[in-house]
C-alpha cells in the first residue's frame, strides 16, 4: 500500500487528485451566494459592517462612534455628522458532506471514489482560499467528521482523511443532516455529494441545512449502470445497503418504468431544491469529475 502524502509537494499527485488538476484548482475559489459570517476574520466579505477598506454604507453619528470614520465631506455640505461603514472581511465555512453508504460502493466507475474526488477537489479549493473546511462522511448518521481544516498545509491531512473513509451501511440523510446541523451551527457553503438513493427520503434532510441558512448544493452522482441498466432475465436484485431482495423479470416495459421512476425521482428532488434555493447538480460517474468540478460546479456558481 502506498504511503499517504504528508507534504503539499507529495499531494500534488495522488489517487484522488491529479497534479494537473490540482494546479487548476488553485485558481478557483468557492463562492457563496449568501455572504456568511464566521468567527474569524477571513478573506470573505461579510454583510456585517466592519473595518475593511471597502465602503459599504452611511449612518448617523452617535456619541461614541469612531471619529476616524466620519465623512467630513458630507459634513461640509450638509452640516451633519455621518459615519462611513465598511464591509467586514470574514472567514467562509465550507462543509462537504459525502454519502458513504453502501449504495455508493456500486458502479463502475465507483460512486464513492468519484465522490471522494469531488470532496477532495472542493476541500482543496477551500484550503487554498483560507476557507474553513469541514469534512463530514455520513450514512444514516455522521460516521466520520473533521472540522476546521485551514490553509494548504492541511491538505495532506485532508486527503488522508478522505482516503480512509469507509463505505458501507444504510442510507439515511435525514438523520445525518440533523446531526450535522446540531454540531455545525455556523453558516456557510454546504455541498452534499450523494446518489440520493435514500429509502427514507433524501429531501427530508434538506430542511436541516436550509434552516441553518446555509448555501446548500446537492451533487447527485449516479453510475452508468444505474442510468441505463444492462440487465436481463429472471433476477433477484439484492440491495447493497440492507440486503433486501427484489425479484424481477427484466422486460422492456419494466426497464421503461424504471427509467421513468428514476427521472421522477430526480425531478422531485430538483423541484424541492429549487423551491428552497438549493442548487441541484446531477452527474454520472462516467463523466470525468474534472468536468464536473471545472464545468458544472462553476456553471452553478459554486466555484469561480
Amino acid at each position, binding site marked *: 500500500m502506498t504511503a499517504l502524502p504528508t507534504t503539499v509537494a507529495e499531494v500534488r499527485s495522488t489517487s484522488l487528485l491529479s497534479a494537473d488538476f490540482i494546479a487548476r484548482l488553485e485558481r478557483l475559489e468557492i463562492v457563496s451566494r449568501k455572504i456568511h459570517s464566521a468567527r474569524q476574520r477571513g478573506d470573505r466579505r461579510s454583510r456585517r459592517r466592519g473595518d475593511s477598506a471597502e465602503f459599504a454604507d452611511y449612518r448617523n453619528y452617535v456619541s461614541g462612534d469612531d471619529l476616524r470614520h466620519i465623512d467630513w465631506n458630507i459634513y461640509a455640505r450638509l452640516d451633519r455628522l455621518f459615519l462611513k461603514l465598511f464591509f467586514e472581511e470574514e472567514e467562509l465555512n465550507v462543509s462537504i458532506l459525502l454519502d458513504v453508504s453502501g*449504495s455508493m*460502493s456500486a458502479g463502475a466507475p465507483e460512486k464513492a471514489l468519484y465522490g471522494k474526488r469531488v470532496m477532495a477537489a472542493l476541500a482543496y479549493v477551500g484550503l487554498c482560499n483560507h476557507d474553513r473546511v469541514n469534512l463530514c462522511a455520513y450514512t444514516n448518521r455522521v460516521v466520520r467528521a473533521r472540522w476546521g481544516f485551514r490553509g494548504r498545509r492541511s491538505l495532506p491531512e485532508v486527503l488522508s482523511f478522505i482516503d480512509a473513509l469507509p463505505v458501507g451501511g444504510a442510507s439515511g440523510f435525514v438523520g445525518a443532516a440533523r446531526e450535522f446541523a446540531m454540531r455545525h451551527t455556523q453558516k456557510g457553503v454546504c455541498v452534499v455529494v450523494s*446518489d440520493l438513493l435514500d429509502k427514507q427520503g433524501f429531501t427530508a434532510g434538506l430542511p436541516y441545512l436550509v434552516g441553518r441558512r446555509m448555501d446548500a448544493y446537492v451533487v447527485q452522482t449516479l453510475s452508468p449502470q444505474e442510468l441505463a441498466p444492462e440487465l436481463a432475465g429472471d433476477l433477484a436484485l439484492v*440491495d*447493497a445497503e440492507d440486503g433486501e*431482495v*427484489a425479484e424481477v423479470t427484466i422486460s422492456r416495459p419494466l426497464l421503461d418504468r*424504471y427509467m421513468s421512476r428514476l427521472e421522477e*425521482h430526480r425531478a422531485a428532488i430538483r423541484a424541492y431544491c429549487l423551491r428552497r434555493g438549493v442548487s441541484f447538480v446531477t452527474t454520472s460517474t462516467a463523466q470525468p469529475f474534472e468536468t464536473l468540478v471545472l464545468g458544472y460546479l462553476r456553471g452553478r456558481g459554486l466555484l469561480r
Partner: protein
Amino acid sequence: MTFLSLKAGLWAAAAVVPLLILLYFLKLKRQRREVSSTLLWRRAVEDLRVNAPFQRLRRNLLLFLQLLLLAAVLAGIAEPVARFLRTSRPRVVILLDRSGSMRATEADGRPRLEHAREAAEAFVASLPAGTEAMVVSFGASPAVVQPLTSDLRRVAAAIREIEPTDEPTRIEQALQLAMAYSESNSAAAAGAESENAAAEDDRSLDTGAGLDIEIFSDGNIADAEPTDRAGARMRLHRVGEATDNVGITMLDVRRDADRPGMVFVFAEIENFGREAVTTDVSLSLEGRPISGPGSVQAVALGAAEDEGAPGSAGVSSGDGGSRGNVLFEFEHGAGGEVRLEVHRADALASDNVACAVVAPPRAASMLVVSGRPRALAVLVKAAEALGVGELRTMSPGEYESAAEGEIAAGGRLRFDLAVFDQHETDRLVPGGYAFFDSLPKMDGVSWSRTVERQPIVYGRNEHAIMRNIDYETLYISRWREAILPPRALRLLEGPDSAAISYLEDAGRRFVIAGFDLLESNLPLAEAFPMLIQNMLTSMSASGAADSGRSPRTGDSIMVTPPAGATRVTVTRPDGAREAAAVRAVADFALGELRGAGVFRLSFDDPAGTTKAVAVNVEDANESRIRTKGAVRIGGEEVDIVGAERPTNVPLWKYAVAAALAALALEWWVYHRRVMI
C-alpha cells in the same frame, strides 16, 4: 368418494404436476445481482403491475394463452362427446352373456367375457347423467346383477362382478326379465302420475318405449322366442374374434345290453375353426388311460363352413367334414368316472373335456300297467329291445290291489319306470311314471280339450327325455290337452297344445302323453325305444347318474337321496362345497350347473352314500365361437354394434388436458423475457 376416470386423472397429474414443479423450481433459480439500491426497481415493478390492466390490448402472448386456457376449461365443463350412436332413451338394460362361449380366449390372451365387460363398462361410462340402467347376466338362466338405478357407478361395478360359466346361451328369459323389470318400474312411475290408468289397458303405458336393450355377447345366441318388446330398442355389442376351436359336442356312455361288463363310449367331435385339423382324443377311466389299444384315437376334421353353407359337415372321421366320431370300448365290471379329452390347445378349453359316470352294471327294471293286450305288447316289445332286466306287467286292477312290496321298496318305486296305458291312479310313490292317454290322480291335473289332426311342430330335444327323438316324423291323430300346474314342461307340442308334458311333484316324475299309443305311429318309430330308454335313465328312482347322456351345463337335475339321508354335501368341480337338507321322499334338486365337471354328493345316510354327477358342455352352439354375420333374436335381426367401439366418446378429458397444457405453457412464458 370415487372417481369415474381415475386413470385419466392420474395420467394427467403424472404429466402436468412434475412439469409445474419443474417450472416452479426454474422460477426459484433467479440469478442474484447486487445493485446499489432496489428503491427504484420496486417502484418500477409495482408500476408495471398496477398499469398492466390498463395497457392497450396489443398482441399479448400471455393473454392469448390465458384465453386459450379458459376456453379449454369451459369446453371441458360443457362435457363434449363424439356421438356415434346416441342413446336418447332414459332407461337401458344391459344384458351380458356369461355363457360357455364367452370363456374363449382371444388373441390378447384374455377371455372373451373380459372384453365384453370392458365394452359394457365403456358403454355405461358414455351414458348421459340421469340415465337409468340395469344389468342382467344370462347363460342358461338370467340373473339380475343390478336392478334399475341411475347410479352408473354401481352399474359399472355390477358388470365387473360377472363371472364366466360353461352354460348354454338362452336369452329369452333374460329378455322377459328385462321387460318385466322395466314394466314394474314404469308402472310404479306411471301409477304415481295417473291414478286413473286402467289396469286392463297395459298397452297404454307402453312400457317398452324409452327402453334400450344393449346385449354384450359374441352373438352365438339361439333364436329366442318372439318376445313382445313393446317398442324397446335392441342392439348387440358383439365381441370376440377367435375362431379356432375343436370341441366335444356329444358324449354317450352305455353298457352293452347283452354284455353288461362291456362299456361303450361314443362321442362326437366337431371342428369350428377355419382350418382343417387332426387331433388326438383320449379316454381315461378313473384317471388312468383305458387298457388296450385305442385309448388314444386320432381324428381328422375339416374346416368348418360358414354358417348356412350347404354340406358343411360330415358325420364320420376322415370324410373331410368338420365333424368326427370316436368310439371307445372297454371292459369294466364296476362303476367309475370316464373322461374324454381332446388334446388340442385352442381358444375354448372347456369343451375339450367331457366326463361321464358309469354306473355299475345293473339291468333296468320296468312296470307296464295296461288293460289292452295290443298296447301291452307294444310296450313289452320296446322294453325287451332295450334289454330291460326286469319287466313286470300288471292289469290296472292288479296294480291297485298289489301288495306294497311288489311296487315299492323303501318308500320308492322299485322299478326304474312304471308305464300306465289308459289307467289313472293315485297310488304313486316317489319314482318315475309315464302315462299314456291317462293322468295321475292329483290336484291340479285334469283334462282340457281334445285336439285332432294337428301336426307336431316342436319337440324339446334339449330335455333328457327328448334327446335324440326325431319328432318330425311322428303323427298323432288326436290328443287330449292336459291341464297341469304351471311348472309342467311341454316336451312335444302341436301348434297350440302339448301332446307330451313332463311334471315333477313331491319326488315323483311324470311323463304325461295325452294320446292313445295305438292312435299314433310312435310305437313304429325309431323314437319309441329311444323315448323309453330316456325315461328309464332319467326318471329312475336311483337317480339320473346311471348311464347314458350326462346332464349338460344349464340343466337342473334331480337327485334321489338314499333312504335315511337328511343332509347332503355337494362338492362342485371348482372345489366349492355347500350343504343342504334333504328329505327321503323328495328328490334333491342339483341346480346351478354353471360349470362343467364332476359334482360329488355325499349323503349322511347310515351307508355314507356318495354319488357323482358329470356335467358337460356338449353344446355345439357354445363351441361355435366364431361370431355370426347376422344375429336374430325373437324373430328379428338385431342391430350389431362393434363392441370395441364405444357409443359415445366423451371428449371433456381432452379439453381438460389441453387446459393443463395451456396453463403450463402460460406459466413458462410468464416467467421468461417477453418481447412485447
